[in-house]
């Protein structure tokens, strides 16, 4: 028991003695745990809201639609016979419809958008009665908008819209489980679209009275029909679709969709976020390990004398290692807790499964499994970074520990010879790198990880740009999907950049500390303060360059893998050049501060052998 | 010239007078430059009288001291053996200077600090000369070792003089 008290007292005192370092460590590990928590928590988060929406609205297990084929002048409007036959098919227990669906142009607030206008009764339907969340259901002269679509347009109850030239006012906003929320309404190519228009364009979803919907149909753009079915065995919806068909003349198209397909389409929004966050989380973890390694490793060497005292007083190597690790383990646990808390609080922002579904998935399952994994990762990061230095420190012989002899730098003849040929700041920088090459490698690795993350994000942006360009999305409206994706990637980028910045500051400060004696000596021998501070910065920037360059192919590869073998997107060269240049500039700027501060102190204070 | 030293130099074999002088000169280097031949022979005569040494003139040459051959007697050899085993050390004579300062202060004959200063300057000069002689010697000669001893002794004396200066300065400021 006494040993435990001793360990905790020593750990607490040391943390209090160097609060800045402790805070930096905490920051590094917390950033990693937050990202990881977010990624894990977003796992399959919309299944809840979709199901609750389906339950409340009595959503269909299968929807069947017919509509006039695009590009053909219809001889006659599509027939409803196929749909009617399905009403009595085996396995179907209830139905609503067939409802008329008109293809119309909606104009409001300066936007022009194609929409599916479905005609409904004012009375409640047996299957798929969309739930009105604001306002009221359809009535003459009024239109109800799907909630996500309304948000994209910026419309609220009471606003006015025009459909095919007729004016309506918005009576309500509703959610449904019968179609994926905007902009995925036509995801399954089951929409009644303009003549000649590609089906995949973003169409909105609105409901009108049956009479109003029929009035929107013209000979040029006839009506389609949609039927909602409830099955006796909802789980077998796919089987039902396979065994029944809606084949008709070539002048009409038809499609059947199962509820599972709609659920998956709705999931896409969040799964994109998760796809990005989980690999991003591991990147953040890698960066955190680097930061902790530098910070903790530096602290270990400072603690050599403390180790010597403990051992001289009778501490076993195990006890000494325990003391050294205790404070870091403590920080790791605090960081894990903070990461879990912050992640849990912010996950709803990212996973709010769009406005088109009910239920806040705001408690993305913070299962014991997730919490356990995050804690394990935090501890793992810490131990990975601190175990080796702690063991080494604990194994030092007592005498040399008391004498506080730091490990002298090994000689790197090639680097020393090459540096003599370079201008003075690079000479200093290269020789500083030669003193601690492992630190330089770590710096290069951290830069590589950061650039990998940023390039992956850029590749994702570029891929979306390509796709968007091909399909002429957006029609001037804000696209919730890419909006959400941008949001997520922005979060990830911010986290990575913060971690990278923390990392660089830590490494720069550790380098400046370690380089105190050689840089003071350089100044005593005639190096100007500017030469010395540029040299210190160069010691950081030079290893960062190969790291940044390596991050480019790695980032492209990461996106390709995360995109599950989709488009291999290579961002434009100008973006990549900007990333590399920006990273190097940031590294230089972040290390300039500790470097300059170090170069200002009078050399005499550092080199003083006796106070005389 | 200390008697035992001369005895010891004769211990190896009977030696001519001039040889003895040569050996001493070599062992002492610059320190032995002013070594007076007469001193050695006076000592040898005393030793002869004390029965520790016998002198034989070389045949057919005038009776000059440097031509005589000197040899240890049995008593002389015993004396040498005893001397080698002795561990007495030359007595440092600081008492004289110490009393000099006290007397000067008590009788107001002079300023103790000025006396210390003057002595210090003198010792520094000697140190300079000894140091220069030491630098001129090769590192392995016998004389180099002797000179190092002289230098270190002077250093020690100088340190004591610094202590004297500190003490007498304090005394003066107290009075």
């Amino acid at each position, binding site marked *: 028991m006494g040993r435990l008290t001793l360990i905790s007292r020593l750990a607490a005192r040391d943390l209090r003695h160097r609060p800045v370092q402790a805070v930096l460590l905490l920051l590094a590990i917390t950033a990693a745990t937050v990202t990881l928590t977010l990624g894990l928590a977003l796992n399959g988060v919309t299944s809840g809201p979709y199901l609750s929406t389906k339950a409340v609205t009595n959503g269909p297990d299968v929807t069947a639609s017919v509509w006039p084929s695009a590009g053909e002048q219809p001889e006659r409007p599509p027939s409803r016979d196929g749909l009617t036959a399905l009403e009595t098919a085996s396995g179907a227990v209830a139905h609503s419809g067939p409802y008329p669906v008109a293809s119309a142009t909606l104009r409001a607030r300066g936007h022009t958008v194609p929409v599916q206008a479905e005609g409904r009764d004012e009375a409640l339907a047996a299957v798929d009665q969309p739930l009105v969340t604001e306002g009221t259901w359809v009535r003459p002269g009024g239109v109800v908008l799907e909630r996500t679509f309304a948000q994209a347009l910026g419309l609220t109850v009471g606003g006015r819209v025009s459909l095919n030239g007729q004016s309506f006012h918005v009576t309500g906003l509703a959610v449904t489980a019968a179609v994926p929320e905007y902009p995925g309404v036509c995801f399954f190519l089951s929409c009644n679209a303009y003549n000649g228009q590609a089906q995949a364009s973003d169409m909105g979803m609105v409901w009108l009275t049956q009479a109003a919907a029929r009035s929107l149909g013209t000979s040029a753009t006839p009506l389609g029909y949609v039927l909602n079915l409830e099955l006796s065995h909802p789980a077998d919806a796919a089987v039902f679709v396979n065994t029944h068909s809606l084949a008709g003349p070539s002048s009409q198209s038809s499609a059947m969709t199962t509820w599972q397909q709609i659920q998956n389409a709705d999931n896409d929004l969040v799964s994109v976020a998760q796809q990005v966050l989980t690999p991003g989380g591991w990147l953040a973890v890698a960066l955190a390990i680097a930061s902790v390694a530098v910070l903790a490793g530096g602290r270990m060497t400072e603690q050599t004398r403390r180790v010597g005292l403990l051992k001289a007083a009778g501490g076993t190597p195990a006890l000494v290692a325990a003391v050294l690790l205790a404070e870091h383990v403590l920080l790791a646990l605090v960081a894990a807790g903070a990461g879990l808390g912050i992640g849990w609080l912010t996950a709803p922002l990212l996973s709010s499964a769009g406005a088109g579904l009910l239920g806040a998935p705001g408690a993305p399952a913070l299962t014991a499994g997730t919490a356990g994994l995050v804690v394990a990762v935090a501890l793992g990061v810490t131990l990975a970074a601190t175990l080796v230095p702690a063991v080494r420190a604990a194994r030092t012989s007592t005498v040399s520990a008391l004498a506080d002899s730091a490990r002298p730098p090994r000689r790197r003849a090639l680097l020393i010879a090459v540096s003599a040929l370079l201008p003075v700041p690079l000479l200093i920088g290269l020789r500083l790198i030669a003193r601690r090459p492992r630190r330089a490698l770590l710096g290069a690795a951290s830069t590589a990880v950061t650039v990998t993350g940023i390039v992956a994000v850029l590749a994702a942006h570029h891929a979306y740009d390509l796709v968007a360009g091909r399909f002429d999305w957006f029609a001037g409206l804000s696209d919730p999907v890419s909006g959400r994706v941008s949001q997520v990637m922005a979060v990830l980028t911010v986290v990575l950049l913060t971690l990278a910045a923390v990392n660089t500051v830590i490494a720069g400060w550790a380098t400046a500390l370690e380089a105190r004696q050689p840089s003071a*000596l350089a100044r005593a021998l005639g190096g*100007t303060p500017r030469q010395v501070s540029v040299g210190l910065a160069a010691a950081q920037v030079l290893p960062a360059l190969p790291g940044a360059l390596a991050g480019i192919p790695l980032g492209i590869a990461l996106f390709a893998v995360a995109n599950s073998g989709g488009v291999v997107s290579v961002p434009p060269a100008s973006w990549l050049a900007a990333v590399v240049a920006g990273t190097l500039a940031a590294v230089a700027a972040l290390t300039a501060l500790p470097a300059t501060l170090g170069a200002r102190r009078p050399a005499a204070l550092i080199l003083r052998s006796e106070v005389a | 010239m200390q008697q035992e030293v001369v005895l010891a130099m004769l211990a190896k074999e009977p030696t001519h007078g001039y040889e003895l002088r040569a050996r001493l000169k070599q062992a002492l280097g610059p320190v032995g430059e002013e070594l007076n031949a007469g001193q050695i022979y006076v000592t040898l005569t005393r030793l002869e009288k004390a029965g520790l040494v016998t002198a034989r003139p070389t045949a057919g040459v005038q009776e000059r001291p440097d031509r005589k051959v000197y040899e240890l007697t049995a008593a002389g050899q015993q004396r040498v053996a005893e001397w080698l085993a002795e561990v007495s050390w030359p007595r440092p004579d600081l008492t004289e200077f110490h009393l000099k300062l006290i007397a000067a202060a008590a009788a107001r004959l002079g300023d103790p600090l000025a006396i210390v200063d003057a002595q210090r300057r003198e010792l*520094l000069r000697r140190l300079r000369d000894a140091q220069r002689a030491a630098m001129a010697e090769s590192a392995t000669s016998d004389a180099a070792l002797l000179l190092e001893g002289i230098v270190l002794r002077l250093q020690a004396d100088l340190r004591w003089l610094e202590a004297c200066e500190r003490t007498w300065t304090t005394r003066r400021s107290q009075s």
Partner: protein
Amino acid sequence: MTALLSACGLCKEYGKGDALVRAVDDIDLDVAVGETVAIMGPSGCGKSTLLHLLGGLDRPTRGEIELAGSRVDQLGERALARLRRDAVGFVFQAFHLMDELTAAENVELPALLAGRSPRAARRRALELLDRTGLADRARFLPSALSGGQRQRVAIARALANDPAIVLADEPTGNLDSAATLDVLRLFDDLHRAGQTLVIVTHDSRIAATADRLISMRDGEFTDETRLTGGTAGSLGKLAGLEG
């Protein structure tokens, strides 16, 4: 003869109020070209601080320092660095050699910092090592050299850029008697070659070989001596050879 180094009213204070410490208190010092000046004093008397001030490694609280025509106390950091590079050679008590560089690489460092070509710097370094008697140790690391050899490498380094003045802080403080002799020989050679030296020491052996010997206590100069004239007695008398 105009002085190479001239300090006037030099002061260095630390702390404030009750805790004020005057490490250097109103010091005047002139050093002519080619002179060897030794400053002696006990530990804590401020002699190392004085040397750091003279060499531009630290800034005085008050006072003027003129070295090789420039006012050291008025120079900015960059100009001070250039001054240290071109006009001052500093020898530290703790040597301060880089452990991972060979003797030759250590000695050529000031020349490289001054922007000379690597070849010229290396040539000068080998020349200096030869002069200090370490030509065969040029490729050795400091860990393979004895204390005296390391200090001689440090002295060679101080000479790399042919400085106007060499400032040495307790150069034999960490050395044994034999190594001290080596360093003394080196300083003697330099003196004879016309190098101006200011040596701070509490070793009377070095002090005895200087042209001027200044005693320092509590930040002030207390005494100045020129050791002219012969000794009162011969070496023989010193050694205890009675007449």
